[in-house]
């Protein structure tokens, strides 16, 4: 197992935030953890195509092409650029739904929300 450091650290971060996600009771903190997991995945893919101190893929000079191994891979960067924008849009939707939930039930605790919703279902039936 000879994983590079840029492969191992994002995986560690992903599982730390996964641990937080399954142990937390706070709804806002779970959204933060989902954002952390997104960041870990993005860092993994950016790290796949480059190593520390790589040149950015902006080629104004033809001299860069003489040493192409020093240039970072542009494809994961372009894909991750869109992934970041999508991630913040998803976070905005999450927070808006959380605000609507808070307005209705006045709590930010998953356990309390679960109890409330189960009692509500019983009342409806």
């Amino acid at each position, binding site marked *: 197992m000879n994983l590079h450091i840029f492969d191992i650290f994002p995986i560690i971060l992903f*599982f730390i935030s*996964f*641990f937080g996600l399954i142990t937390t009771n706070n709804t*806002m903190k779970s959204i933060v953890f989902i954002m*952390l997991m997104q*960041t870990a995945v993005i*860092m993994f893919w950016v790290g796949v195509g480059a190593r520390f101190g790589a040149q950015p893929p902006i080629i104004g000079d033809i001299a860069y092409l003489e040493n192409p191994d020093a240039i970072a891979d542009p494809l994961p960067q*372009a894909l991750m650029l869109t992934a970041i*924008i999508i991630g913040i*849009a998803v976070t905005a939707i999450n927070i808006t739904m959380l605000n609507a939930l808070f307005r209705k039930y006045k709590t930010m605790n998953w356990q309390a929300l679960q109890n409330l919703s189960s009692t509500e279902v019983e009342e409806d039936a």
Partner: protein
Amino acid sequence: MTQVLLFFWVFSAACIVFSRKAYRVIIYFGVFSLITSVVYLALGAPDVAMSEAGISAFATIFFIVCIEQYYGRGEGLKSEAIASRRKIRVTFMKFVPAFLFTAGLFLLFVNSVPTGYAFTELRDQYLRMFMQDVGGENAVTAIYLGYRVYDTLFEALLLVIAVVAVTHVSWFSSEEVPDGQHSEIENSRMTKFTMRIICPIILLFGAYLIMNGHFTAGGGFLGGLAFASFFICRYLVLGIYDLPIKKVMKMEELVFINITILPIFAVFTGVVYLVADVTPLFQNIYLVAMSALVGMKVACGFFILFYRHIAIERLPADIDKKE
């Protein structure tokens, strides 16, 4: 150096996971985003680093709006007190299986990750050919506006859907949001003076990013984020909520239609991919027009997202019950 940066990166994330106070989560999240940007920059990805820095500002605003509701009305303090009185045994019973489960998943995942340095032929192809195929000098812009422009289309579509969802969920029965001072910071003349100087510079910077996206780091996304942050500064200075939100939504949809039409038109007329017939002038016109459209799209989207979150915070809590 690498190890130190990455260690602090994971350490700040661990601070987020193990902190109990909600405001501290926001502070640690800011630190985490800053370190993430630095690592992206060191990895040779300036576009990704700048967009991470830009979105972390918006994420902080969204979370602060969320927390202000929680603490501002005194509801959250009670449940916080209950949570801090949790018994140690219950905590132990909850945390240990979760930790074992996560550690097992981690080991399984680490064993199955393929090793090796991924220098592909596709990368060489892109780096060799993008200046003839799409134009410009920034390979990242060339990929997301030329080779993989349909990814950008679906990203724009997802942003439209997100904006529609946010406005739908936060669309209360009353559309009028009260104006007024937001906090005591706005009374300070120093802040107003500083913002008044910063605002034109932000607009200029956004225009620079959009116009030069294909030559340096930048492009439509970052220019759009800069334009949206101009509106945040404007709100902070003036403290008024005068957003014609339906007009902005209509404009966003029109821009999205243009974003879908322009690449298809460009591909069929041979601006992109046809080497012999096309001069670099047309390629540059296409890239700048596309960057401007994407920038307008992102600016409108984040403008609406920001102002809807402000509306959530400003409206009284029982607005729906009054009707």
